[in-house]
């Protein structure tokens, strides 16, 4: 079973990101569970959302305490929230930041990746909502969920221009990750 924890602030589409990942995993033929951590429902407040993906029915209902993957939608949360807590050995943390991963100086042995999701969102979507870009980059890095399934999930949840723009932004994230892989 794969466990993912998403950290962000209220208004960044954290719960939607978890939901989209779970729906996309379902479309890929896997079992998935997504749920919010039910923090204070305020814009700007630290929020968590959880995703589990497995090849069989998921029964466990506890919060994700020892994630395989972390998605951090706001890099400044790292200063105030113990986002890295419980991250598994050999895990991966993806941070929304316009700097190189080594410049974040994260105290972890896990792989750290960054993507300038807010900048991409402002450019393509016109609003600083990073979630589609973050999950696009996440799927591009991990291959855990197919990009096609994520695209479908986005278009179903946000039909019309909002969906199209988010899909375009997600594809930009994928291109950036692939370029980075090619350079490595």
């Amino acid at each position: 079973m794969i466990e993912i924890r998403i950290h962000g602030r209220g208004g960044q589409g954290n719960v939607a990101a978890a939901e989209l990942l779970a729906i996309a995993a379902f479309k890929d033929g896997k079992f998935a569970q997504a749920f919010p951590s039910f923090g204070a429902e305020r814009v700007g407040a630290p929020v968590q959302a959880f995703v589990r993906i497995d090849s069989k029915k998921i029964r466990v209902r506890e919060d994700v305490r020892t994630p395989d993957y972390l998605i951090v939608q706001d890099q400044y949360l790292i200063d105030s929230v113990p986002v890295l807590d419980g991250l598994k050995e050999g895990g991966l943390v993806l941070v929304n930041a316009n700097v190189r991963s080594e410049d974040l100086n994260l105290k972890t042995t896990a792989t750290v990746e960054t993507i300038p999701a807010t900048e991409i969102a402002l450019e393509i979507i016109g609003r600083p909502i990073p979630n589609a870009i973050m999950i696009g980059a996440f799927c591009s890095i991990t291959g855990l969920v197919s990009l096609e399934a994520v695209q479908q999930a986005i278009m179903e949840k946000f039909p019309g221009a909002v969906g199209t723009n988010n899909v375009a932004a997600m594809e930009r994230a994928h291109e950036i990750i692939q370029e980075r892989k090619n350079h490595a």
Partner: protein
Amino acid sequence: MLKQIEGSHAVADVVALCRPNVISAYPITPQTHIVEGLADIVESGKLDAEFVNVESEFAAASVVLGASAAGARTYTATTSQGLLLMTEVVYCIAGMRLPIIMTCANRAISAPLNIWNDQQDSMTVRDAGWIQMHAEDNQEAADLHVQAFRIAEQTHLPIMVCMDGFILTHAFEPVDVPDQKQVDDFLPPFKPRHIVDPRWPRGIGLYADPRFYMETRYILHRALEKSEDTIREVSAEFAKAFGRNSGGLVKPYKLEGADLVIVTMGSVVGSVKELIDRLEAEGKKVGLLQICSYRPFPKQEVYKALKDKQNIVVLEKSVSLGRGGVLASDVRWSFPRSDKTDRHISCFVAGLGGRNISIDDLRFMVERVEKEPVDLEFLGLKKDIIAEKDL
């Protein structure tokens, strides 16, 4: 059709398939998505129902009471403070034998204010004369609503379908949402026993003086006890029609040969099963008895399942302040006096106000009662932040 869907929306979709004529509810977290979903369905024209917007839960309960008395199939949903505000009407609905279906998106109660999950809210009305069913997951939550309309209309008893707030209502997981024909084949149109009609004036639930009141309560008590048969039958029929087990009175899991049995209800069942499988792999035999029907409390089924067990632990998300576990009391009273087995029934109160119940917490509980029985313990209590002077 199998869908990756939020629990609340699965329930809204399934309730709509049950073709209620009147829906009335007041939005309250974490029930809101259910009634928003139903409002959308009614607005779209897919469901021909009257959606009555109201100013409070008291009014919502009163609207469905009146509509049900007038012969309508009715539905409402609430939680926590909303349920407490409804309480007066909740008792009246049962006393009038109106087969109303309500979803309780279980949540803690004030004060202090807390919007997260536990089961103290539905517990406060456990004696109101409603059938109370608890869902393990969102599939069962959806299925229980289909069964609930059948059971309620057959027994003339209202039913509260309890699903853990947020943990289920806000979880996206796969749910097989049936199609209209499947539900229509299972659930015949509502045939009310009495109808309040201005053309033929009559009253219900009006007045019973000391010569008659006690008999009305006895009848309601017996009707609830007898509804066990209907709950069992409808669950069996559902399994035949839909191909999966949902609902019923109790559900055992790996009870045979178990040295220790956990008794619980609601969404924590999933984590308990997970723990039981892990312990089994480590060579430890622990079983589970899931209570699905909390009222009527299936004491014979509970006794049948537990009569050979000596070490039992009740895990519950509610507490009777000044007394202790509520479900634990019910379980303790399930053994007849003739039963002389020396057994321990421990009680753990857990998850109050949305406190996470981890697999490690559950493992701690098991190891604790393996050593010695526990009358009452609060799982994961932070003793270090409690001042002696406050006790």
